[in-house]
């Protein structure tokens, strides 16, 4: 390893490894002999082990570091004893350059009498450190995950050092202490009790949401206070912030879960009726019971509108992305700028644009095709931009290999580029569909709202799921609102299905590579 690494460096001619190896080994053995001054030099190595093996190592166990250094120092010093010729490579491969240099300097600083004698060794150590880090660059990624390898390799060499022959059990470096658990749960319960007394008994507060918000704040304060009783301020801050971050993430998760479950729970009244999926609302009074009428017209309308919009948006969006990435030229940047700018267009403005141009100016009546146009204007930049990102991150080597084999640009695009990014394009498409099918504002302005099943997008108004939800909720009729929640559940289920398909596609991309 030394030879190979030395040959790679520009310093190689001035550095002959063979004659200088003995001093290097001597330096390492001196490290094992007078361990006291050397010990700091090995501290980074010892600390490096728990950090790289487990990022969530327990910072509250700082008191264990001394014992850990003592326990871990032995394997490091015994390595030169067993295989002296590879000693430098062993120690340095687990060090970074800075640590190796520090180690080299630390050897001369305390040992004054030997300073002059060891200067050549230091001169060797410096280029050696450089070359080691170069060599260590390659396995660096493999070293980090396999940080737990030192104990198994070191344990057979430790055995002769220790008198007892009990097997080495790796010290648990993660996990929580009793203090961690007790202060967390204690603060949670204590803050609840304290706040209950203050909130409901002493002060005239009302509202359950206010209680929960105040409970969170009281808990954080109490947790910080309890932690401060036995921990340094850094640990107090660390614990409090960790609790706050977890609480924030939990609130977001709760909001997401509540939105999904609330919609389905309120929609179940309408969803249990089969006629809800097979009939339309023609001739059904808003106050009619739920076993009359349904939303088939809204489902069909949504599918037709999004289908037409995607039929045009997909080729245009992907074609634009291909133009921007594969053809290029000075105009490609202008196209990209405009496409990115149009993603900022609010959907209601897109709807208003189509309303003004198609319906007011050109005199098209409110139909499914007008709604499809509005959805098209809205999702075209989304699909184009998502496809652009997918094409941009595709490795250029594949393209170049195809071109180098003599394929034309079109053959490259058709047989290499597009098949490679197909899962990504599918993701872009489904993201566009999910956005387009759920957006209410474009269809609100353009499609009109029919109460009957209309499969012709070119004449007569057409209803759609978001529009049906919107109008039913605005009606104020309890039974009609229940229908609205049923339609919202269908819409949500549609988006969930699309979402799961997207995930599947994204995953197969990884599996195929």
């Amino acid at each position, binding site marked *: 390893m030394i030879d190979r690494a030395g040959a790679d460096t520009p310093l190689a001619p001035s550095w002959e490894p063979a004659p200088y190896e003995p001093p290097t080994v001597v330096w390492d053995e001196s490290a094992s002999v007078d361990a006291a001054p050397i010990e700091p030099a090995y501290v*980074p190595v010892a*600390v490096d082990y728990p*950090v*790289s093996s487990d990022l*969530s*190592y327990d910072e509250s166990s700082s008191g264990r570091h001394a014992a850990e250094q003592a326990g871990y120092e032995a394997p490091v010093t015994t390595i030169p004893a067993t295989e002296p010729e590879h000693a430098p490579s062993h120690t340095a491969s687990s060090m970074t350059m800075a640590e190796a240099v520090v180690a080299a300097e630390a050897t001369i600083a305390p040992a004054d009498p030997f300073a002059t004698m060891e200067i050549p060794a230091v001169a060797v150590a410096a280029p050696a450190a450089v070359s080691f880090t170069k060599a260590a660059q390659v396995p660096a990624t493999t070293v980090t995950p396999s940080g737990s390898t030192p104990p198994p390799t070191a344990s057979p060499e430790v055995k002769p050092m220790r008198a007892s022959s009990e097997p080495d059990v790796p010290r648990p470096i993660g996990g929580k202490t009793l203090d961690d658990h007790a202060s967390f749960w204690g603060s949670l319960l204590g803050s609840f009790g304290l706040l209950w007394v203050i909130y409901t008994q002493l002060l005239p507060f*009302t*509202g359950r*949401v*206010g209680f929960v918000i105040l409970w969170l704040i009281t808990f954080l304060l109490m947790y910080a206070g309890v932690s401060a009783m036995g921990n340094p301020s*850094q640990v107090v801050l*660390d614990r409090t912030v*960790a609790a*706050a*971050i*977890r609480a924030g*993430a939990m*609130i*977001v*998760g709760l*909001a*997401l879960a509540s*939105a*999904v479950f*609330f*919609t389905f729970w309120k929609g179940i009244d309408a969803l249990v009726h089969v006629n809800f999926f097979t009939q339309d609302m023609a001739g059904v009074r808003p106050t009619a019971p739920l076993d009359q009428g349904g939303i088939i017209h809204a489902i069909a309308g949504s599918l037709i509108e999004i289908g037409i919009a995607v039929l045009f948006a997909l*080729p*245009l969006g992907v*074609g634009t992305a*291909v133009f921007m990435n594969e053809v290029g030229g000075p105009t*490609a940047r202008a*196209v990209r700028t*405009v496409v*990115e*700018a149009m993603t*900022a*267009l*609010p959907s*209601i*403005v897109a709807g*208003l*644009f189509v*309303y*003004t141009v198609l319906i*007011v100016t050109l005199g098209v009546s409110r139909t499914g095709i007008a709604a499809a146009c509005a959805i098209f*204007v809205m999702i*075209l930049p989304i699909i184009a931009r998502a496809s652009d990102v997918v094409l941009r991150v595709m490795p250029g080597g594949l393209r170049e290999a195809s071109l180098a084999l003599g394929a*034309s*640009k079109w053959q490259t*695009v058709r047989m290499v580029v597009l098949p490679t990014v197909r899962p990504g394009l599918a993701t872009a498409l489904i993201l566009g569909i*999910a956005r387009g099918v*759920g957006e*209410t504002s474009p269809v609100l*302005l353009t499609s009109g709202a029919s109460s009957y099943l209309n499969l012709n997008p070119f004449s007569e108004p057409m209803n759609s799921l978001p529009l049906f939800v*919107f109008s039913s*909720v605005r009606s104020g009729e309890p039974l009609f609102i229940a229908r*609205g929640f049923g339609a919202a559940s269908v819409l949500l289920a549609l988006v*969930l299905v*699309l*979402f799961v398909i997207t995930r599947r596609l994204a995953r197969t991309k990884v599996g195929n590579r």
Partner: protein
Amino acid sequence: MTALMDPPSTPSAPEPTPRVEDVPRSIDPGLPRSDKVFFGVSRAIGYSVFVLMGAIGLFLGLQSIPTFKRYGLGFLTESQWQPEKDILGISAVLVGTFTVALVAMVIAFPLALATALYISEYAPAKFKSFLVSMVDLMAAIPSIVWGLWGFFLLQPKAIHVAHWLHTHMGWVPFFNVDTDPNAAPWAQSRYAASAFIAGIAVSMMVLPMAAAVMRQVFSQAPIGEREAALGLGSTKWGMIRAVVLPFGAGGIIGGTMLSLGRALGETIAVVLIISPAFDIKFKPLEIGTSTISALIAGRFGEATSAQLSALLTAGFVLFIITLIINTLAAMIVARSRSGAQE
């Protein structure tokens, strides 16, 4: 082909003979026909999208000319929207738009930051991809569903929070509501349909976008510096503050601005929740406000052509604001990404 036939004669004649001067053969084979067609078609698609998108922007811009001719700059400063009196102005809705967006960002920013930090730093490794896809799912939920959530689930509870904030922090003008908070049956309706409640619903819509951008930037924070910080004895939060947050600052700002741009344009949830009002006020807890998008959704139906172009002008103003915010955000995110790759 003729170029290929010729060369044998040139090397096979060693003696200098007076010949016509050597013209370098063109080695460019030219484009095959399939490529010509491909370039032509994809250029046509690219230009057509360019023209279409450019035309929309141009159309919106041109529509605002007659509006500004008719109402002057008073269109931006007038607060009332009374087509029957020919008084049209968007200052009140602009204020309402920013109030709703401000409330949304005040709620969304800390939650998005906490979510992103939790996913990238605290969550167990095996849940990470699940949590990431949950954030994506949250972004895919239709806005009408968030509107229902805000109107039916959140509003009855948020009224109490608003009342509570007014009662105990009413001395801050921002939390003030024009009613007596201590009246025996306090006026619940005064706290409903407010910018505060609409802002909460909007915050849930824009939060996943901010969280996704932030998480992506956080996950790019260099592992070596993280380990260096931990190796020097830093706590996890110390590591986050010293490495992850400075590294992800661009992503935090950019993601927040991207979601702000989305919050300004949200329509349906706002329309469902608020009750329209056209006065300039900074009382998000009180009933009644309006945003540009809610104004468009509410007024397009009965609009004459002049009012329609006024609505389009309002939409154009909103578009320009969103565009500026998005462009700034994209620049900030791009800069932080380029820093991540070195």
